[in-house]
């Protein structure tokens, strides 16, 4: 058995090491991206030295390492525990910001970037959580270093939600369910005012009313669009440009929205 | 290597095993007089079904096998009353009548001499305790906590008294105890009630053990053994390890001691013997209730309630052994292998002869030789 015991020996190489040295060892591993060994080192650090500035720093870097190595659920629970134990810590803003980053990237299938898949067409539950996290950063820590970027990411997420709704609206337009299309367009206008797809929503409304034969409403929608975005393709009659049916035979075609942008 | 040992050494559920029997120098000898069969016994029904002895006859019932009568001295079969009913309660005998209850709530009364059926009646739940017969009445304790009184002659219902049962109680009930003009009933919520025999009115009530505790399990305080009247003093014990002596007429508690169990107490001239749920047999001083001795060698062997024979206390266990313990110090005096199946009902002693019925339906009678 002795020989066997030797094999496991280095596992507790971190026992009894002073906290500064332990932190240094973990930090170097973080710097050169060796997330898993950094995580084991920090885990032992927190267990042996459950308090002190090094521990707080180690906890934060643990969350970062977990995020970077794709362990999203662990990252979220580490962040939540940190916020509960150190509510007034000076970088709590960073922790909420990191939580937003984790949530916005949480469900993106690895292939999504490779196969050009559109995240707005999938379940928006975790992006919604990310939106709320960034909102906390923006409102509670307005002058922190991350507030500006958080607001920007919120805008991008909000456009994604609007894009989801409008894509569904255009689908219903194509299927001839014009009342449903008008409903979705109205929802975008009311729930996400000033979003990137504001004018597309008005165009959808106009198209739906035209198909429904409701001349007055269609004309007013056209007038509103004319004022806001005179160059909108719907005005010249070639919008929405649904992707061609041939793309449906190419398995690697990926998602393409009729919104054009 | 510790990790490797952990893999194979997985202990199976770590339940504690019943204690092994210890050797001892027998100071008394028990002889078997006779044995007989009462039919197919209760098995694991938990009814603690035992025989009744009255004026020289032993009456025994079984879930399958009806009611049979034997002669106390010789064990000769006197009569047998066939019945389809699953007879689980009793029998109880007295005033020339044998009464027995069934799992379906039937009450059957037979003529003690011939075994002929006199009358039948119905109660609301299963009967797992022997009916009490006396003073012209048959008192039946059914499992729903109700005591129903029938006229011994006609079987017509006179009155009934009810006590709500807790959500979880210990299996089994004690029979009512007939006193002068009144009846004592041990309830499942740890209280002892005295009822007037005339109309079933509640005379007094005394809590033997309070039904308190964090979980349902801790709150169980059943008094499942029939109380014992010694002169005017009543002795009762509860599953929550409490035994109490109470003044019969007034219901005032005389003493209480924190040892006790689900079975019946045995009261001798100066001792009160009781078995607790873990299998330890306690000898208490009758006057003060102080614990004089405890016999813990039969731990976890599902030991029955004690009965007195001569100056010994006798208990049965789950392997069918009978143990005679000396009354003064609780030491083992004799032991016999009385039945192939577990003994759950406390043995019954009459005219110096001890009669015991196993859960397999086997009856045997024993006498103490010198």
């Amino acid at each position, binding site marked *: 058995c002795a020989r066997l015991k030797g094999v496991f020996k280095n596992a507790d190489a971190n026992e009894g090491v002073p906290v500064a040295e332990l932190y240094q060892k973990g930090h170097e591993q973080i710097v050169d991206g060796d997330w898993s060994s950094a995580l084991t080192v920090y885990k032992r650090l*927190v*267990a*042996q030295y*459950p*308090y002190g500035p090094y521990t707080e720093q180690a906890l934060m870097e643990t969350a970062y390492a977990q995020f970077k190595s794709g362990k999203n659920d662990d990252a979220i629970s580490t962040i939540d*525990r940190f916020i509960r134990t*150190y*509510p*007034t*810590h000076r970088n709590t803003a960073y922790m909420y910001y990191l939580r937003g980053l984790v949530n916005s990237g949480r*469900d993106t*299938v690895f292939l999504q970037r490779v196969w050009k*898949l*559109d995240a707005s*067409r*999938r*379940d928006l539950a975790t992006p919604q959580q990310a939106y709320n996290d960034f909102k906390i950063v923006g409102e509670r820590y307005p002058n922190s270093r991350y507030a500006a970027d958080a607001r920007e990411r919120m805008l991008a997420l909000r456009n994604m939600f609007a894009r989801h709704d409008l894509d*569904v609206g255009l*689908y*219903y337009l*194509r*299927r001839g*369910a014009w*009342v*449903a299309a*008008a*409903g*979705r367009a109205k929802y975008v206008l009311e729930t996400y005012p000033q979003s990137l797809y504001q004018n597309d929503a008005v165009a959808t409304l106009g198209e739906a009313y035209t198909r429904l034969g409701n001349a007055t409403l269609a004309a007013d929608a056209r007038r509103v669009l004319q004022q806001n975005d005179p160059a909108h393709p719907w005005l010249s009659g070639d919008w929405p440009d649904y992707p061609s*049916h041939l793309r*449906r*035979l190419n*398995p690697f075609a*990926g*998602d393409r929205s009729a919104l054009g942008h | 290597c510790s990790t490797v040992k952990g893999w194979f050494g997985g*202990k199976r*559920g*770590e*339940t504690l095993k019943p204690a092994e029997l210890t050797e001892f120098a027998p100071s008394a000898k028990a002889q078997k007089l006779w044995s007989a069969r009462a039919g197919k016994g209760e098995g*694991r*029904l*938990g009814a603690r079904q035992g025989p009744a002895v009255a004026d020289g006859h032993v009456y025994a019932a079984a879930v399958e096998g009806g009611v049979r009568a034997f002669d106390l001295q010789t064990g000769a079969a006197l009569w047998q009353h066939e019945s389809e009913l699953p007879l689980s309660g009793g029998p109880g005998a007295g005033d020339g009548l044998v009464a027995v209850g069934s799992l*379906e*709530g039937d009450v059957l009364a037979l003529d003690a001499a011939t075994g002929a059926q006199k009358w039948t009646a119905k109660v*609301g*739940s*299963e009967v797992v305790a022997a009916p009490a017969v006396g003073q012209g009445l048959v008192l039946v304790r059914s*499992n*729903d906590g109700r005591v129903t009184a029938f006229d011994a002659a006609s079987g017509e219902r006179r009155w009934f008294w009810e006590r709500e*049962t807790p*959500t*979880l*109680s*210990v*299996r089994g009930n004690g029979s009512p105890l007939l006193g002068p003009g009144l009846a004592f009933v041990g309830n499942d919520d740890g209280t002892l009630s005295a009822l007037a025999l005339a109309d079933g009115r509640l005379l007094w009530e005394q809590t033997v053990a309070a039904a308190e505790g*964090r*979980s349902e*399990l801790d709150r*169980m305080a059943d008094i499942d053994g029939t109380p014992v009247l010694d002169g005017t003093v009543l002795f009762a014990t509860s599953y929550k390890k409490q035994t109490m002596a109470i003044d019969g007429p007034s219901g005032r508690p005389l003493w209480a001691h924190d040892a006790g169990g*689900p079975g019946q107490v045995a009261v001798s001239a100066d001792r009160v013997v009781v078995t607790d749920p873990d299998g330890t047999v306690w000898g208490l001083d009758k006057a003060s209730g102080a614990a004089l001795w405890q016999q813990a060698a039969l731990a976890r062997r*599902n030991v029955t309630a004690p009965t007195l024979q001569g100056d010994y206390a006798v208990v049965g266990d789950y392997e069918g052994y009978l143990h005679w313990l000396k009354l003064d110090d609780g030491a083992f005096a004799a032991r016999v292998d009385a039945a192939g199946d577990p003994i759950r009902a406390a043995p019954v002693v009459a005219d110096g002869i001890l009669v015991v019925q196993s859960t397999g339906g086997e009856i045997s009678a024993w006498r103490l030789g010198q």
Partner: protein
Amino acid sequence: QTASPFALPAPAATAPILPGTFTVSDIRVDGLQRISAGTVFTYLPVERGDRLDRARAAEAIRALYKTGFFEDVRLDRQGDILVVTVVERPAINKLTLVGNKDIKTDDLLKGLADIGLAEGETFDRMNLDRVTQELIRQYNNRGKYNVVITPAVARLDRNRVDVTIDVKEGKAANIRHINLIGNEKFDQELITDNWESRESNWMSWYRRDDQYSREKLSGDLEKLNAFYLDRGYVDFSLDSTQVEISPDKRDMFISAGLSEGEQYKLSKVELTGDTVLPKAEVEKRVIVKPGQVFSRRLLDLTSDAISLTLSNIGYAFAKVDVLPEVDRAERTVGITLNVIPGPRVTIRRVEFKGNTRTSDEVLRREMRQFEGSWYAQAAIDRSKVRLQRLGYFETVDVENVPVPGSNDQVDVVYTVKETTSGSFMFGVGYSQLSGVTTSVQLSENNFLGTGNRMSVAAQRSYYQKRYDFSFINPYFTDEGMSLGYNLWWREFDYSNFNVAQYSTNSGAAQLVMGLPITEWDSVSALFGIDSNEILAFRGSSPDEIVDYIDAIGNRTFHTWRGQLAWARDTRNDYFMPSVGSYQRISAEVALPGSTAEYYKLEYEYSRYWPLSPALILRTGVNLGYGDSYGDAVTRDLCYTPPTPPTTGNPNPPPPPPPSDPCIAGTSPDYVKTVTADGLPFFENFYAGGISSGGRVRGFVDNTLGPRAASAFGFSRPVGGSVKTVGSLELFFPRLFDTKAARISAFLDFGNVYRDWADFDAGLLRASTGVALLWRSPMGPISISYAIPLRTEPFDETERLQFSFGGQF
């Protein structure tokens, strides 16, 4: 008793020695180790400059205790400085659980973490007691009443502790005896037939149905109540129920006293309220008639049927109140059904949750209920079934969420749980049939979440080289017309495939199209060209085959293939259908101009019978017939066989060329006339083995049916032009709680015959056994153990068979 030998002193909250009130000029915190002063200040309800009196001080102490960080808190006064002295609770270094078997360690750890007992958390002895009680309660719920839990706390340096919780589970209390008293009219077995609590029986070791739990019992008593109310016993009452435990806490006893009362009949049935539809129409759905025995179940079914009908035309909240008037003397009950339609509801939005991989449109195109339309319950149910039939989801749930602020609008939310919808096999594989196979095979029914079905396979094994590509988009048009294409190249050596001695090299390109005709029926068409080169040698390949090729006079068969099929599918789930049927009839034709002109007809039918929630029977049959059309081709063969090399003459001269033209009877080297008629041998149907189509488990793959002897004498199965295969299979959905695995007992039967004339039911082979299908993350694995029942002497039987990656 769980005495915890913990040495720390009890938290004596000493009263603050604080005479009178004073204004706090400054605050100092002593005793802090892990917690920062900032944290204390946020929770301390006192700031500089506040006036502090006894009440405010007590309140401050309570606030600091509530944080759970501190073991002890004391406020003192030094001049005008408020001194807060705290003793921090130790942190937990290691938390270990020993001896727990029934509840898994990580479930326990998760539970403990929720109560705040986890590594790195502050240790609070009060938590430990709460955890111990919680564990005891959880074990009691599982019927383990003898559990003994002893927590142990070991103190370490730097204010840390190691916590170990030792669990002695003891034996579970089993239900030994269930007794109903007062049931005269029905005996106990009938009443407790569908109860969950059961007395200990021989199956209890597996089904664990003799474990007592209060929830199960209350559910069963509700069933008892329903049993009598469904049979007219309106006055039924449950008088008393007793639950008892044996003194050694190992056996449970349940007894219930009941009084049945009398059976009641229906005196009148009246429909009132706003029935929306004409009354006569709604009355059709009332299945209870005066004179019938009163039955609550039939009444529930009636009110469900009526409210369901109304919910199909917009009345989402329709309900029917059943008002009984009981006449004790006549023992009759008068029923008034009061219909309350509620508002007519429209759907605002249809939303999907849980589709992290599948695109929104793939789900939305299955919907039969549109946004902006009036509510139709049947359309919503149908949409749910269509989602289940896609095969991408393990479970599909739907719920109506009322739109806030409006009484007549709802959102319909479908929550799906995605599962593996394809298989990915890579690398080296081995199976009895094909020896060592190196292959990559990716088939995905929901490729990249776009709903397209695609499979790519490259496989090399002992008997075949295969390169396949197939793609189909089920929604080429929005209305559901599917379009796709298959391309493959195969080199196949039938000899090692337990079939006749010849090999083929074939390639094909096909276009596949599907047109839905109704909600359940669809027509599919296939058009393709393929070439099939047969390498058969007289002597090793059976003569039948060589004669056929010689008759055709060409080894490569070019075929213009067309197929038309009609299918009706009313099943309600892709993996585990419990109701509905699937049937498909297809005609495949080698069009005129192909080397061999033939047609093949196939008919497949399977029906699912829900015998009970835990038992589903599938009856299935698979028939096939093929024949040539146009006239048969006959040819006279003249050739002289080569003289085999002998030791004396190692390379004998080649045989003379065959005489041309070869006339039967006159040419010297005339050997025989051969004719090519009927279905070509390489298109024959096969049966036996586990692959669907010719599935008769218990027999080696493709070995049933006629056999042809080759010159060297050993006979080989060649398949036949008539296939008759069928099966009876009993599924047990309840045995596994996940839908990913499915176990069944089956009776397979079938055979293939050379032609109609040879069909003989007596020759049908049969086998019975059990089969397991498991949808592993890598793809579907099916394992079956079969015992052949009716076999003939030459049959090659095989009891254990497994296949990987095949279709279900």
